């Protein structure tokens, strides 16, 4: 009963918003150029899906490249920072401080350095999404339960064994928190990159449609981006479950 309520109520609310949008816009005489009803957006998706799919490809490729790079870089550098207390004290405060600035504004620098195209959009996406992975890795790996570490020492575990069977499993939830933020940040970076420095991709379609006042196409491309974002988040959440079950099942080879 509680489950049903937890699913039915949000869906009902979503449906109510859609119905209000579909009929309310016409009733309030909002011109369809400003706010086309959902049915018109769906029709545009059906009519224009070749164009939309064609522009989904560069965005999706950019995502795979940037998310993979940011995950590996963030994890490796984060793990390296946990190796030495001094190194961490020297570098980590800058990273935390840097996280608080509107980093997205560096986009024009990447255009100057790398030109207009996939290379600069991917670099911007890596730049934005790498920090959350690094911070997640550092806070996860340094947050191991001290008594577990003492146990490892008294069992004379090697540093690698301690890392593999204790530190890493403890850190995984933090690392995946970072990865989840990174999934959203990397698609955000790609979209902004495509706004300011690309001639392809869904972000480019959004900006192009807005300059023509084609709100239906704009919303259709935004819908594609939203679905993509949610799918990627779901993928990372699924990977987390997989990784947790694998690591925890084998965590103590007795």
């Amino acid at each position, binding site marked *: 009963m509680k489950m049903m309520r937890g699913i039915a109520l949000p869906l009902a609310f979503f449906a109510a918003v859609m119905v209000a949008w579909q009929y309310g816009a016409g009733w309030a005489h909002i011109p369809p150029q400003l706010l086309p009803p959902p049915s018109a957006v769906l029709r545009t998706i059906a009519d224009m899906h070749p164009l939309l799919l064609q522009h989904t490809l560069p965005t999706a490729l950019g995502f795979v490249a940037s998310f993979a790079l940011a995950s590996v870089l963030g994890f490796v550098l984060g793990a390296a920072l946990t190796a030495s207390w001094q190194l961490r004290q020297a570098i980590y405060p800058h990273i935390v401080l840097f996280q608080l600035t509107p980093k997205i504004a560096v986009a024009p620098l990447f255009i100057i350095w790398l030109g207009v195209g996939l290379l600069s959009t991917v670099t911007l996406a890596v730049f934005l999404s790498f920090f959350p992975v690094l911070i997640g890795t550092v806070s996860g790996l340094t947050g191991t339960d001290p008594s577990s570490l003492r146990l490892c020492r008294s069992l004379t575990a090697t540093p690698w064994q301690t890392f593999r069977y204790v530190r890493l499993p403890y850190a995984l939830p933090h690392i995946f928190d970072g990865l989840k933020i990174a999934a959203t940040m990397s698609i955000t970076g790609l979209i902004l990159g495509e706004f300011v420095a690309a001639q392809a991709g869904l972000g480019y379609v959004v900006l192009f449609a807005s300059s023509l006042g084609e709100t239906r196409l*704009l919303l259709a491309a935004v819908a594609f981006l939203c679905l993509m974002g949610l799918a990627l988040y779901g993928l990372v959440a699924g990977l987390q479950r997989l990784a947790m079950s694998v690591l925890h099942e084998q965590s103590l080879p007795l």
Partner: protein
Amino acid sequence: MSTPPDTALQPRQRTVAIILPLVSAGLLLVFWQAVVNGTRIPEAILPGPLVVIAELLASLPQLLAEARVTVLDSLIAFAVATMVGVALATCFTFSATLRDAVHPNLVIVQLIPKIAFAPLFVVWLGVDAPSRVAFATFLSFFPVALSTATGLAATDINALQLCRSLGASRWQTFAAVRVPFALGHFFAGLKIATTLVFIGVVVGEFISSNAGLGHYVILASASGATAKIFAGLIALSLCGLALYGTVAGAERLLLRWWWE
């Protein structure tokens, strides 16, 4: 997840923890200047720190004027997002049905790349400040609403039972118990919002505007004035950090005052 739990630093370690970041920042600047001097990278690609500082000082009046526009838009968006977010979260505590219907949708909206909506605000509200303020409000409202709702729902169950047995009204319970318990979460949401309002305003200034630091940076990049880009980015970062610092300071003051 902002700080690693390096618990209980010794006084000497604490001094080292302050000196090391300063040393590393100094080394980075020296290295950057040395690279620029040694390799003759054109200034349009990578200006050295000295050139950037000179540019920062030379353009200070213009930077301040542009910063005024960006900061004002950001502050309005921040205030509106805070009020709407807190109002919605408050409604959640008084109606479980509303919360169950709306909250999961907010969580999903939080996961979509909301930046894609920026051009829509331009179509709706034009190229002036209202569209940027509205977009920045849209970006920063969600963390405030979600964190505040989490905080208000996380009240210690014993405290709530105590309220009930003392015959406190729902409103009294809210003001005297739920709000103080929620303050930590509320401020966590506000801190995320401080970064997001600046991102919203700057993205708006990138795609449509004729003033503000985002416009300054985009204009500098169009003319290949890389030192100006760096100067604009530094000014922008300082604005972002100042707002974050203000919120963090307000949190400390308020929490101390409340718990005393």
